[in-house]
């Protein structure tokens, strides 16, 4: 990256064309979001008389307060809490169980280790969408419909994170574990004092990816949360549309859409470097 000059087309007219091209792309990417933002600040009447305005109105607080406090079926604030619990539960739960099992398969030899390894390898291949009906039955059987555990557990039953940590642990020099043994550390002390702090960046990167994954779940919460007070925000938006010929309350729906984007966007932008790293790592 040190010297990336030297190519003729990067100056003058060509440079402006490059910027222009990128700005057109940005507009395409941002227009839907901008429109949602505008719609969340105007009145229902403004929207019902097309074309709707393209600049924000002054009903921002009114619409967002309405969404957050009363919503349509359930207060959106409450849905956000549900989403937050679900996203954090999935991210933290998956990280914890994966760290432990990766530690076991890398640093111990125990009977069934290979079998275990291949079993979790199989889980890499199957998204939850493929086994929804039987998984639903299992969750229903446990009485976990409309519960946080029902939202969380089926989505942490996959081994991507285990593989990631396994790969990272393999790169930790053997001598560190030996030095810890000479220092008298037990396996769990080594795990807590050395392996865990060394994995900080990987854990954080994975957290970003898993948080977004959890927050953005749609099908699963749609199936198992029949009680509006357990809806997550991402699935709750669709529930806000009226079933018959009634008009949808667009300002509130759009305010909810914006609210649904905010936490994951904050995580992505705020932890951009970790996010990119997590993305690249998890696809390797």
């Amino acid at each position, binding site marked *: 990256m040190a010297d990336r000059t030297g190519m003729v087309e*990067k100056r003058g007219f060509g440079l402006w064309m490059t910027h222009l091209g990128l700005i057109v792309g940005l507009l395409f990417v941002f227009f839907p979001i901008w429109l949602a933002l505008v719609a969340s600040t105007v009145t229902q009447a403004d929207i019902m008389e097309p074309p709707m305005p393209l600049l924000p109105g002054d009903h921002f607080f009114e619409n967002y307060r309405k969404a957050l406090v009363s919503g349509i079926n359930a207060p959106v604030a409450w849905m956000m809490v549900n989403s937050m619990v679900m996203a954090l539960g999935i991210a933290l739960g998956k990280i914890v169980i994966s760290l432990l099992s990766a530690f076991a398969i890398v640093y111990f030899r125990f009977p069934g280790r290979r079998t275990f390894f291949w079993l979790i390898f199989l889980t890499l291949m199957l*998204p939850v969408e493929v086994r929804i009906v039987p998984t639903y039955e299992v969750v229903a059987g446990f009485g976990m419909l409309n519960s946080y555990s029902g939202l969380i557990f089926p989505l942490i039953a996959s081994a991507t994170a285990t593989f990631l940590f396994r790969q990272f642990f393999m790169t930790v020099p053997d001598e560190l574990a030996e030095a810890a043994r000479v220092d008298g550390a037990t396996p769990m002390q080594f795990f807590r004092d050395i392996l865990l702090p060394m994995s900080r960046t990987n854990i954080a990167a994975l957290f970003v990816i898993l948080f977004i994954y959890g927050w953005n779940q749609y099908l699963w919460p749609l199936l198992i949360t029949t009680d509006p007070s357990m809806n997550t925000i991402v699935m709750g938006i669709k529930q806000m549309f009226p079933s018959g010929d009634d008009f949808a309350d667009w300002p509130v729906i759009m305010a909810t859409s914006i609210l649904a984007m905010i936490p994951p966007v904050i995580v992505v932008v705020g932890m951009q470097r970790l996010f990119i790293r997590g993305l690249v790592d998890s696809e390797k």
Partner: protein
Amino acid sequence: MEKRVTFKGLWLPLLLVLPQIVITAVFFFYPAGQAIWQSLFIPDPFGLSMKYVGLGNFEYLLGNPYYRASFVTTAIFSILVTVVSMGIALYLAVLADRLIKGSGVYRTLLIWPYAVAPAVAGVLWLFMFNTRVGVVSWYLGLLGYDWNHVLNGEEAMGLVVVASAWGRISYNFLFFLAGLQAIPKSVIEAAAIDGARFWTRFRTIVFPLLSPTTFFLLVVNIVYAFFETFGVIHTITSGGPQQSTTILVYKVYADGFVGQDLGSSAAQSVILLFIVGLLTIVQFKFIERRVHY
């Protein structure tokens, strides 16, 4: 690859893997086994008992015109989503890569739509193209085009494709930009000295060197289009009109939960499982090849 150092102990490692084993067994292997098992049965008309039909569900499905249509729909949908989102992302990545300064700014601006859930993306695009209030459909009307994705299957397909591809641009852009920036500048400069113009250089040097990234994204995007676009379709079209946007995953849901036909839904799951398996093998073959690059 194995570690030289291992700790002693039998119960400790078993205890460590226990949470994952339990969760995976209960919420993964058991349901997956159930899917396979159920795919061999059909419920009686009262839903009281199950009747063993062997591969009957599969035969029925493969002979069913709706299911076959769903296959075709899925293929068209996946190809379009993949081509559109990768095309736009590659275009933007090539432009950003040409910048000496500022590519980081564009990257920051372009990555955050990744955080938008497919279902939310669906709602945003639905809003723009809504037949009553949508801004875009209104302007199209001014131009004399009567947009109605509620009735027109092709328009519905176009809308779910764009909404799905839109949500994917960030991801593809990131990987393309990283791939482009990994190409040694000296190679491109050598080509420039050889007299190759930008487009020639792109076609003969850059694109071939980028092919591992491209191939990887191809597989990943197809998997995305197959499984993760449920939210887009459910919010925008609910599979309609006349099943014109009912992709396979949507059909599993529709038949299993709306239609309550568990045997058929399970058989569909098994077929999907098979497709994912194939895609995974393709991906692993590719990774293997990439190692030897």
